[in-house]
């Protein structure tokens, strides 16, 4: 199966039980909608188990970045198990450690502080997208 070289797949864990899972989901959407809309595609993670071979081909077709809320790394593990090994993994709980001033507390609606945190994670994902596409030096990460 041919790898699509002009798009990067992003699979987010969307973890419902942890605020970091919500950040993971929102940051991924920020990349898809605002930062790198022309360069990225996504798929619902649970569809790997619930869907067909077409869905499970995802990481074979697109070089894929897993975005996980915590160290359980469900997106990375699930993508590898059902589809193909991701080319990189971003773990929100690790990125958060760099910003002790910002706290992730809510699982539902994000506060302004949590949105700021989500944007920081989104920028790291966007930088990784550029790296995967070999554009690291051509574009900034501000979108």
């Amino acid at each position, binding site marked *: 199966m041919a790898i699509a070289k002009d798009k990067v797949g992003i699979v987010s864990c969307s973890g*419902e039980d942890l605020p970091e*899972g919500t950040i993971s989901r929102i940051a991924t959407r920020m990349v898809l*909608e605002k930062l790198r809309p022309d360069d990225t595609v996504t798929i619902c993670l*649970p569809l790997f*188990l*619930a869907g067909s071979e077409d869905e499970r081909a995802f990481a074979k077709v697109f070089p894929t970045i897993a975005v996980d809320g915590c160290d359980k790394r469900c*997106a990375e*593990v699930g993508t590898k*198990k059902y589809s193909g090994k991701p080319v990189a993994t971003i773990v929100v709980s690790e990125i958060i450690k760099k910003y002790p001033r910002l706290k992730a507390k809510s699982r*539902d609606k994000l506060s302004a502080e949590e949105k700021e945190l989500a944007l920081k994670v989104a920028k790291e994902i966007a930088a990784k997208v550029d790296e995967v596409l070999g554009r690291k030096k051509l574009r900034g990460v501000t979108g």
Partner: protein
Amino acid sequence: MSKSGKIFVISCSGIGKALGTVGRTAMYEVVEKLRPNEATTVCLPLITIGDETVLKLVRTNSCISVDGCPFQCARKNIEASKGKLVASFMVTDVLRENRGLKPEGVIELNPKGLKLASRLAEKIVRQIDETNKNR
């Protein structure tokens, strides 16, 4: 606080569609506001990857799946893991009953989407009360 003994409301959180956000929002409305003592949730991806602790929880406690679309990922993940599924909801069904409430936005739901989520939450709550009555 232990999750055991509660009803697990598990949403798909579909990232590709606003429908997934409606299901996720409805689930939080139930487990955080309407029935916090009776209901709880877990990360669906932990079921997808076969996490032993979570598999044990969904096999021994009643589960309600909340899915965005007919792919029914939450339902199928719970079924494939031999979870104790007592009811399933689909956002598309509730949308059919509330045609004026077209949800938009994944990062942030529009007011109609939020209203649709509340209608779905009411249905889930009725199911929780029914399940608890029959226990």
